[in-house]
């Protein structure tokens, strides 16, 4: 049998690739979908913000490196281990996130001393009912590479607190607003304060999927839009969300993400962002 398999191997090896054409096609594909800069975490420690990433697709975006999908929710993951930001607030996603083991849930008053950012809570928003308002600390799985190359869970720590509000309207649409402290953006803002880096779109891949929003003076704000297929999720339909990077008085940066479940007009997402920015800081 071994001898016969060598003959079959010759048949197997008949298939060859036109490498020049293959490489040209690959380079073109990479140019159309350029990767975010690769990053290595310190030492051999690996961080995983969640347990089951179902899809992971890098994009070129300001400060972010990966999209990934879990529990019906789309996450953005930054290059620093700050934790995920919810983008799609499907009921399934919310239940999955908030009930996963090692997740800590806090009320607003409990969250305030734990948060690294001022939590903003606007009053009633006409047409929308708040159905959830919680501080969340998601688990961070710290893994270490073993001698045989496998990853071993060494401990579970907590991600920084994020504050999540979810609203729904009479038509069953939902909007989720996530507030969190951005260590990376805070560092960048302090470093480039007073220069053109913050006020221009330099370094940000604004294009068909990213539209800079002009109605947020002093902030970096954009509308992200795309189809699920573009992030390689085999689901029909599209998504849109508004992201605002808001510098605080102490020059730290708070990220506010407004995202929708069900088709909601971008202007409504923007109005939610404005409502949060106008809300008094407690």
């Amino acid at each position, binding site marked *: 049998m071994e001898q016969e*398999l060598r003959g*079959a191997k010759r048949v*197997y090896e008949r*298939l060859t690739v036109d*490498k020049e054409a293959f490489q040209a096609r690959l380079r073109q594909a990479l140019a159309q*979908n350029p*990767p975010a800069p690769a990053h290595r975490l310190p030492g051999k420690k690996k961080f995983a913000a969640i347990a089951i990433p179902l899809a992971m697709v890098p994009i070129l975006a300001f400060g972010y490196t990966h999209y990934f999908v879990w529990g019906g929710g789309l996450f953005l993951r930054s290059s620093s281990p700050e934790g995920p930001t919810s983008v799609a607030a499907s009921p399934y996603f919310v239940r999955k996130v908030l009930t996963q083991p090692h997740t800590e849930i806090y009320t607003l008053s409990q969250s305030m001393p734990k948060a690294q950012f001022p939590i903003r809570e606007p009053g009633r928003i006409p047409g929308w009912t708040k159905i959830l308002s919680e501080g969340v600390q998601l688990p961070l799985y710290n893994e270490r590479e073993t001698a045989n190359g496998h990853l071993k869970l060494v401990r579970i720590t907590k991600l920084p607190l994020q504050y999540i509000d979810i609203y729904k309207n009479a038509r069953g649409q939902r909007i989720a607003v996530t507030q969190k402290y951005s260590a990376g953006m805070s560092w960048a803002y302090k470093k480039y304060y007073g220069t053109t880096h913050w006020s221009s779109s330099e370094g940000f891949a604004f294009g068909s999927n990213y539209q800079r929003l002009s109605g947020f003076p002093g902030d970096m704000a954009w509308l992200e839009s795309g189809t699920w297929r573009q992030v390689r999720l085999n689901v029909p339909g599209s998504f849109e969300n508004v992201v605002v990077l808001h510098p605080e008085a102490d020059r730290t940066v708070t990220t506010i993400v407004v995202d929708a479940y069900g088709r909601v007009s971008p202007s409504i997402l923007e109005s939610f962002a404005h409502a949060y920015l106008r809300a008094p800081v407690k």
Partner: protein
Amino acid sequence: MDSEELVGTWVAAYADRLVRLAYTYVRDQATAEDRVQEAFIRAYHSRHQLKNRADPFPWLARIVINECRSFRRGSWREVVTADPPEQTRDSAEETVLSRAQDEALHQAILSLPDKYRVPMVLYYFEGLPSRDVAHILGTNDATIRTRLNRGRDRLRRLLKEDEPHGTGITRRETGV
């Protein structure tokens, strides 16, 4: 190594081997090349996860296999299973008879279920040790050895069954 250089190195060293591996799943060269292109893009984006830089083939093979499996889950259709394209020149030593036997065996391997076919391809055709095959497929060495044994038994039975009928193109339902 810059990005162009890295991609160039991967294509030069591994494109043939990975497309052959993908072909055992999708049974069509153009589709296999597309899957490997996707796998290279994924691999490039997550290149910082590559542990053994001296030999990235097992890591790339795993990404290709995952890509092919995801692709097959996407839809179902019937495909024609056929031999890989003929080379324009044959070596002088090969006789018509031995080529037919080789092709019959190759075809029989392609017709095996994934759990037997993929270890056999990686072990016999790609020359990987069973430990590496186990790592790529996320299982252990003993399981791979068992699958190789059972795969060989199945092959023997398949070839015996085919003897009176000869070989040729067969149609089968596959998850492409």
